[in-house]
């Protein structure tokens, strides 16, 4: 969980679980993206075959979008991460 735990929490992150982010702006292969109010620059280099547009949701893994995802799936993933983080803090 690149975004939450690495940047905000205890300095660790999970390497095989990506998190969904919404694309706010695109400049070449770099996109500005947000998840739950936190913004980051991400790379779209791996989505060359299926380029996302502004407003789309993507799963982001170590700073790279690996796949597009629907808004509904993005929202349910965010709920899941909140639950996991609540547990890790307990």
């Amino acid at each position, binding site marked *: *969980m*690149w975004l939450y*735990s*690495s*940047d905000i929490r205890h*300095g*660790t*992150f*999970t*390497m*095989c*679980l*990506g998190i969904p982010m919404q694309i706010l702006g695109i400049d070449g*292969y770099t996109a500005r993206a947000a998840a739950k109010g936190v913004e980051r*620059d991400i*790379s779209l*280099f*791996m*989505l*060359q*075959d*299926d380029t996302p547009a502004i407003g789309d949701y993507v*799963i982001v*893994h*170590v*700073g*790279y979008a*690996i*796949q597009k*995802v*629907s808004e509904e*799936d993005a929202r*349910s*993933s965010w709920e*899941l991460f909140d*639950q*996991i983080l609540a*547990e*890790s803090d*307990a």
Partner: protein
Amino acid sequence: MQRSARDWLDRIHALPLNGPVRIMNVCGGHERSITTAGLRGVLPPQVELIPGPGCPVCICPEEAIYAAIQHGLRDEAIVVAYGDMLRVPVNVPKDEVRTLEEARALGADIRPVASPLEAAAIARDNPDRPVVFLAAGFETTTAPLAALLQEGAPDNLLLVMAGRLTWPAVAMLLDAETPGFDALIAPGHVSAVMGADEWLFVPEKHKLPAAVAGFGPESLLAAFYSVIRQKLEGQAFLDNCYPEVVRPEGNPAARRMLAASFAVDDAPWRGVGSIPASGYHLKGELRRHDVREHFPDHGAEQRRRAGEMPPGCDCARVVLGKIYPTACKLYGQPCTPRSPIGPCMVSDEGACRIWWSAGTRKAS
């Protein structure tokens, strides 16, 4: 219309289970969801959920971590690594530096990163210094590194390659006399990159049910239902219970970049040994980013217990799904997330850390 978790659970309980079904997952994210949602407690008692090789930090070669520490201390390079890697101990005598974190405390320039993009940025900001990146991870983490290399990485970014493929570890378990599980839950995001079809060998060659799952309870329970039902009906096929993200062919661009950057070869897994065709190595002119082209190969130095798990630590059997974390004699005493002994207690994806964080303690 998607079914709810409750609905899948009812369907699982309605199945005519006549004996144990052991379901292995190979993804730390899956294990975390299973544990957080308390799925073990709500499934029929015959269903066993086994955490398998799903933690890249846990199996990252001890030699690679040792080499990264030495590049920081002896070669005075900037060393960057994913945060979890900083706390994984290597096997050295007590008076020597055991972790990247300890090396940093002694003044080595060690920096945690969360992305290959950050590693590249540090290299660009320090053009006169070598920046050594301890590149651990499975396909989901190695593909972004491939993307970085294909887009063009700074010349002073040097790699300790520790990237591993997930499926060969499963193949190794299945090739053994007693695999130890009856069905496989295939990892969601590894499959998003590499394609669900990568797991076809499980039902086709080994006649075991398999299903790709996402990370929510609905998707995981759907996958459990699928593989249990397959087993009861004497079938074995690959089900995809995460079709919104996982396609049969995965992400073709990512796979092209992996193929263009790396060759796949036999590679060591910490405490496990060499697994055939399981490691990514730089190929062609990208070998100029191989740290061994620039510095001595510290990983090859003769040391006692090189490549092994720490003494007394049962992480290797935990990683392979042979025992549960609580069966390790170090679990909880003295090994805890605060003062971890084995990598499975360090990493957010390690089964020991996940179980401990969820409050699982040894039965006394």
